């Protein structure tokens, strides 16, 4: 199951910035590998638990929690990376055919929406995580403080807000300068 994906990637204007671009690319590759390893760990835990349950007749307590909570962190990290590379699922027809200033304008709208909506979600998450930290609730299986899985949403939304802010600044600057878009088309 897939959907229309706007896979434009930020390009670079010549000169300057080469080292920072290399760093960004390496950081993205490293994060990609970390997410891959995390998913393999979740698969391993799933197979381990199912084998234990059906073959040994023994269920490993907390495995389900480990898998679900790890995946929540993976989802939020992946969401941040996808926003940064504009790879989120969306109806991409207009961005696909838009050129130049119109494309920058569309990106400004997307980035502003992300900034406001994720900013509000961050505010909501701060309130929630603060409350459960005060209550000291723990998970039933692993006995983990529930702030740990819930912090995935807080960190994720905060990072999404930050990335959206940076993207918006870049899109506005590009729009004001009337730069040709330097992004690939999907």
């Amino acid at each position: 199951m897939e959907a229309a994906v706007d896979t434009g990637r930020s390009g670079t204007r010549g000169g300057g910035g080469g080292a920072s671009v290399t760093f960004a690319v390496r950081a993205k590759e490293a994060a990609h590998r970390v997410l891959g390893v995390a998913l393999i760990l979740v698969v391993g835990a799933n197979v381990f638990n199912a084998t234990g349950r059906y073959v040994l007749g023994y269920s490993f307590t907390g495995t389900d929690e480990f898998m679900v909570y790890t995946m929540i962190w993976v989802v939020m990290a992946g969401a941040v990376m996808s926003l940064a590379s504009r790879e989120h699922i969306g109806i991409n027809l207009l961005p696909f055919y838009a050129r130049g200033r119109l494309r920058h304008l569309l990106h400004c709208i997307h980035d502003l929406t992300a900034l406001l909506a994720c900013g509000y979600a961050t505010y909501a998450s701060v309130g929630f995580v603060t409350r459960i930290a005060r209550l000291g609730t723990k998970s039933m299986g692993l006995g983990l403080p529930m702030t740990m899985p819930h912090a995935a949403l807080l960190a994720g939304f905060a990072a999404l807000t930050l990335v959206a802010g940076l993207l918006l600044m870049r899109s506005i600057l590009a729009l004001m300068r009337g730069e040709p878009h330097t992004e690939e088309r999907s």
Partner: protein
Amino acid sequence: MTAVLAIVPLALLALGTPVFLVFLAAVTLTLVFVLPIPPLALHQVMFGGLDHYALLAIPFFVFAGELMGASGIASRLIAWVLALVGRMPGSLGVATVGASTAMGAISGSSVAAVGALGKTLYPRLVEGGYGRERAAGLIASSGAVDIVIPPSIAMILYGLAAEQSIPRLFMAGILPGLLIASMISVFIVLMATVKGIPVVGRFDVRKALSATKDAVAALFMPVFVLGGIYNGWFSPTEAGGFACLYAMIVARFVYRSMSWGDIVQAAGNAAMLSARIMVIVAAASIATWLLTTQGVPQAIVTWIEALDMSPVMFLLVVNMVLLGIGCLLDPTTAILVLAPLLVPIAVSLGVDPVHFGIVMTVNLAIGMFTPPFGLNIFVAQSVTGLPAHAIYRGIVPFLAVLVTALLIITYVPALSLALAPAI
């Protein structure tokens, strides 16, 4: 204000804003300006939307699909089907559908299938006399089978959104999926006969045996996954985990086509794609929660009941609406938004919710290759290099076949339910 709440998300969607942000923006507007609900609810419900063990099946099957594509399992399946169809009219076209069905039974990724089929079979179809447009149309439309044949991510999402058994949905998808594949195949054979497409290749027992031997490890995967679920050995989520393990072993040790680094890379790709799907699940959960707490589904049920619509008429209207929506929205979004609204109505009219899930899935599968926004068209475009309007022309005949299949599946519930009660 209500108008703003309706218009803003639609406008954002049309402007290409990521779907999860559309949901989040609509909810933010509602919570800030309309409903006196504490913002903490946003976090709590979104977390609840992700805190489902069953949801893990999505990254697992996506990962299995990535491994299938990267390890050469897909190309072995294509070679196997090609070796089997041999000398008959339209054999190459039938092989395309067969390969797509086999790939759907492993991963359920329509785009992956269209990409793999397009790369391997498009040049051969054109060479075989199918014509560029028809070949591209065939490749784009045969990917629809992948969403209906289990394991299907669309069905996992429907099961969660409509609170239905995912194993039952998987079983219910088998016969409709095979019906679609058969109908496209019959159409191809007729078309090849009428248009005089030259018969290519011949059936060679040795070649067929060799291709079968080469593909046996890949072919065992759907048997293992679906057999395990059907026999109650494991849940769909556990089956997804075993499918990944199996695909890793086959890729690393049987076909020796992937290094550990490649496997981590494939896992990273799967994690990213799953994150894009699951963040929509989380954002849609708060949107549907708001609709539910405001009594919207119940209000729609009451309205439909007041219309005194028969189940036959209701299903016809649903098909028309979903075919329209399927051209515009991706299956993930459409299922997450519409299933909680439509399923109560279907149930109130006596339609089995599992059968309804299959009807929804087939509609949205057709949407995957329906102009103008069907994603398979974009994939076919990138693989074949043809302009969109040429692919549109190639798709039209297959669209007619698929809509006929949809009507049969809609009005013959036994097709969906024959295998489903066996769970």
